[in-house]
């Protein structure tokens, strides 16, 4: 792979570190997506992609930061912004989506779903099935 010519000057330790993070990041992401495609219910599937958005992203961000910092011999930290934004924005998506699913399940009277908790019945209520 001559495309990696620019990495000639990279010390081996850095290469190893970068590779580690890369493998961890991409591996976690893959696992997450596998989970996403294999888990049986939506509420379970919703957990899977967070592997990618948490340490999946984190790993690759780390790899990138280390790689460019070592290569450019100056701190390159802008990738961290990606990490921050992904972390902050993913919950928004997930919350909204999960809540939408919840609404639909309740509207359809799906018995597996927890109904909204009313003050008089503080814990687990029956499914909103009417």
């Amino acid at each position, binding site marked *: *792979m001559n495309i990696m*010519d620019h990495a000639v000057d990279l010390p081996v330790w850095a*290469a190893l570190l970068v*590779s580690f993070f890369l493998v961890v*990041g*991409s591996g976690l992401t*893959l696992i997450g997506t596998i989970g996403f*495609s294999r888990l049986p219910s939506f509420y379970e599937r919703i957990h899977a992609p967070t592997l990618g958005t948490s340490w999946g992203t984190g790993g690759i961000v780390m790899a990138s930061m280390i790689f460019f910092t070592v290569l450019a011999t100056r701190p390159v930290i802008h990738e961290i912004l990606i990490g921050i934004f992904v972390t902050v*924005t993913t919950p928004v998506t997930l919350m909204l989506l999960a809540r939408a699913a919840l609404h*639909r399940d309740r509207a359809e009277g799906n018995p597996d779903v927890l109904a909204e908790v009313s003050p008089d019945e503080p814990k687990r209520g029956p499914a909103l099935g009417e």
Partner: protein
Amino acid sequence: MSQTILAVSLTFAQVCLAIAMALAALRMSRGPRAQDRVLALDTLYVNSMLLLMVFGIRTGKDIYFEASLVIGMLGFVATVALAKFLMRGEVIE
């Protein structure tokens, strides 16, 4: 040496992410429900973003960084709109 190590790990990473994207795309078309598809799209976005970052490492250029940042920062807007549409049947009320 570092080249080889990196080449291997980068290839591994790209393959993993590509598979991940493929799985997400499958889920996108399979559903079964709209929220699965939307979540799949979001996942596809994130995976693409990671793929682009890996691509950046592979080319040694940080000019591709903005594309990743755009996905990271703005990608959720489309998903939010989709989710809101599912929940409320209307994006902006």
